[in-house]
């Protein structure tokens, strides 16, 4: 017992030296990077995936299942469902599966491939599963939900972010100021993918 304690202590001390070393390296990096170069690198790290500074204007009309919808495409064209899938699992763009189960996406995960498991296999449970979403909403309603969940669920105090809104937030971190979470094209792609979910 005593010996193992000493052994463990020694191991822990070694681990400590390692982490302390890492901390120092990080501190040095930070010091070196006080200048412009790293400020830019940092900017890249949070909103770096082509988040748009331009948001499309859109017209709200009366919905069927919820009060409002956006019946026309934000780009005037229909989206690409294959790209939509990509945005939905992307950690910095849609990241929809962080909160929603989508069985069709989960089915893409190969159990023996860690990368595909991490991309498609794990989903959150904050929002409702999106299976059968086209039975519950029109395309225009789905578009509004993704563009501005707060307008779609007005009383819900919803946690779902508004993906196509760039202003009116509180204390946005510098790298993301003036940007929306997804572009009009990306929204249309996601809507197109959702329309394939039965």
């Amino acid at each position, binding site marked *: 017992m005593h010996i193992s304690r000493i052994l463990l202590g020694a191991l822990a001390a070694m681990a400590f030296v390692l982490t302390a070393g890492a901390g120092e390296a990080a501190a040095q990096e930070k010091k070196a990077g006080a200048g412009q170069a790293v400020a830019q690198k940092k900017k890249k790290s949070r909103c770096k995936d082509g988040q748009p500074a331009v948001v499309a204007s859109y017209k709200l009309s009366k919905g069927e299942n919820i009060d409002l919808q956006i019946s026309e495409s934000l780009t005037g064209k229909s989206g690409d469902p294959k790209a939509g899938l990509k945005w939905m699992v992307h950690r910095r763009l849609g990241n929809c599966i962080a909160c929603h189960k989508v069985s069709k996406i989960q089915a893409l995960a190969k159990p023996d491939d860690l990368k595909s498991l991490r991309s498609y296999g*794990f989903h*959150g449970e904050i929002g409702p599963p999106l299976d059968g979403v086209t039975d519950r909403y029109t395309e225009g309603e789905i578009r509004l939900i993704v563009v501005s969940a707060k307008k779609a669920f007005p009383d819900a105090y919803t*946690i779902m972010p508004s993906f196509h809104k760039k202003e009116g937030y*509180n204390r946005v971190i*510098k790298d993301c100021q003036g*940007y929306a979470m997804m572009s009009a094209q990306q929204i249309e792609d996601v809507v197109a993918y959702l329309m394939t979910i039965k």
Partner: protein
Amino acid sequence: MNIRILTGGIAALTALGISIGGALAAEGKKHSIKPVAGSPLEEVWSGYRFAKPTTNQMQDDDFENPGMTWYDIGEANWSKKDGEAGKSCAECHKTEDMKGVGARYPIVDPKLNKLMNVEERVNYCRKTYMEAKPWKYDSNDMLGTVIYVKAQSRGMPVNVKIDGPAATYFEKGKKFYYQRRGQMDMSCAQCHEKYYGKLIRMNTLSQGQSNGFPVYRLKWQKPGSLHRRFKGCNKQVRSTPFKTGSDEYMALELYLAWRGTGLGVETPAVRN
């Protein structure tokens, strides 16, 4: 160092005659306790409950708990002379006097009329009595010393004062907690009050309780202060964080401690 022999605070709890919902103390960490009057929560859970079983095992065994390495740093610091005055903590305090500090802080110091957490207290003593330089919140010296001090209260129920001079800080912290922020437009409450216990991609949301801080986080490979955690949660929703030790985070710390009233102090807890 008999604190290491205490298994998860059982002894501390029985010694104090406190029983949490009648459960065994070891289980007390796993079972919910009743919230304090006025709490928005129906049940209060430590982050212990939402961590992986293997992570809990590390926490339960002081020989395995990697946070205890920093406890040792704190213990060494306790009697180390520092600063112009050439004094150490031990010259003014007995370790036993620290019992209860981890459960009742942050407090409003009546002389300074200021809300203080343990980190601020440590730096106050260093400055005033030792004439030593302040430590940064997440330096190894500060983490070690805070862990050493708070661990003296392990198993004791969190119980902070929120009336009198603390009331305005409490209200400020509460407002912070419910304020949406960042590009994702989320509040603390949305994740930790409304959806605790649910998965957010690969993480299970806890109630975001503060009773185990500084916690050793496996992801960090190091213990971290509560204010570091606040910064992380702010940045996660793409909001500009505040500074460690800022008035905003100090008030939030008080409010959060109140939400966890009755939870046993677990410092240094281990989290995923």
